[in-house]
């Protein structure tokens, strides 16, 4: 057998992708076809999915709270849109947060996902291209409500509150006023 081809085909299959034109022998194709219908294959693929969901859930709890009942659909959509995983928690979560902002809905979604994304990156010592995060209600009230699982404040129609996020700040962020 050709180890490289077998590995590529198996990795693609476990990730839900068609191994397509990977050069394989007839016996290898037969094994892959048989194994992909087994409970053991299903569990292997599920473990892969659990890890991806865990990485997102552990790094982006507030955004998932904002998404509310839609969280599972958004997460499923993300996993389908970005089938290639990463082993790195923050990389997976930041990618999810971008997807959630673009496709999800909910009051304060952009603010909270932007805040979580910025904080995750700052905690790793990364400089942010956009260090300011805008909120449409006092940030502490929004975040405290999400942590408590309570209703978030009604967004102000015009006023904005700003959080500056930076790896140089003692708590990584602080409120700032602009202009």
């Amino acid at each position: 057998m050709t180890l490289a081809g077998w590995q590529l085909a198996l990795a693609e299959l476990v990730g839900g992708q068609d191994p397509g034109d990977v050069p394989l022998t007839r016996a290898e194709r037969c094994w892959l076809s048989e194994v992909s219908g087994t409970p053991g294959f299903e569990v292997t693929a599920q473990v892969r999915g659990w890890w991806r969901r865990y990485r997102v859930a552990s790094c982006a709890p507030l955004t998932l709270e904002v998404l509310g009942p839609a969280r599972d659909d958004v997460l499923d959509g993300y996993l389908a849109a970005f089938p290639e995983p990463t082993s790195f928690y923050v990389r997976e979560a930041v990618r999810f947060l971008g997807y959630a902002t673009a496709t999800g809905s909910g009051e304060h979604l952009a603010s909270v996902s932007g805040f979580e994304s910025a904080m995750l990156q700052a905690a790793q010592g990364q400089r942010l291209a956009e260090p300011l995060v805008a909120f449409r209600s006092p940030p502490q009230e929004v975040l405290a409500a999400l942590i408590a699982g309570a209703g978030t404040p009604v967004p102000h129609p015009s006023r904005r509150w700003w959080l500056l996020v930076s790896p140089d700040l003692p708590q990584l962020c602080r409120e700032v006023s602009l202009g």
Partner: protein
Amino acid sequence: MTQLVPGGGASAVGAPPRPLGVGCSYLPSLPAVTTSVLDLVDFVEVSPDLLCREVERTAGPGVGMAFVPRLLDDALSVLDGVPVTVHGLELSIGTATGWNEAYLEVLDQFLDLVPARWHSEHLGFLLAQRADGRTVNAGVPLPLPFTREAVECVAPRAAALVDRYRLPFLLENATYYLPGLPADPGWDELDFLCALTDAAPCGLLLDLFNLHCNAVNHGFDLMAALARLPLDRVVEVHLAGGGVEQGFLLDSHSGSVPPPVWTALEWLLPLAPNLAGVLYEVQEPAFPLVGLETLRGELDRVGQLWRRFRGGPE
């Protein structure tokens, strides 16, 4: 005494490491957990990749890795003065087209900072390569087929790691859920492990819970399997517990060590002459399920067994 480097040689790398005793996993986001069990352990095992973030690589294919300063500083602080071993996750030593060089770059840096007693890797593959050179991350460690081709892929890499770090290197037997893995005629998982340890200058990190999972899930006898292994090559043992999902016992590191694994450990302890450490393994995601009380209880039990069979006050 068995040399870990075939052909003997007087190199210190070839000698089995000095026994350490009982170990625990370092949990990067929960450094206080490690601190709170230091009275029960003789060494702490670190996965340097868990202290890293993903970065663009400046050279070569694949994803680069860089230490997160806060995580590295916390680890160095907690581990100061504590014997350390290294257990890698990201090397993908069994990938036919080549291992993950980015992990070795990180390991180079870590071993410059921390004098590890040995290092180890999971026996399997995580990465594969498409025809256009792009890397596919399987997202979950996958097993190797039980073939000579796989042995010939891994063995020279183990030798290269011994040369590179001048440290004992161990390979860990994996859990797998896929049935009927391809195998050379007459070979099974145990033949494969024996052939690999025979061909490679490395020791065996025998994960008794992984082997127990495979015995349960694939229907073989754990103790009969153990008896077929070259026990003089076992340098470290991992213990863990896990849950059942869809009829499969999972290597989820989410619970107490089950009775058959304790039985296997008691059988093994007097028979593995080069065993240098036994570690109760917990993963960060599962720590809330395990809890500190269970962690301390399992470490205490390992310690009692270690002292009974390997010496020291009970």
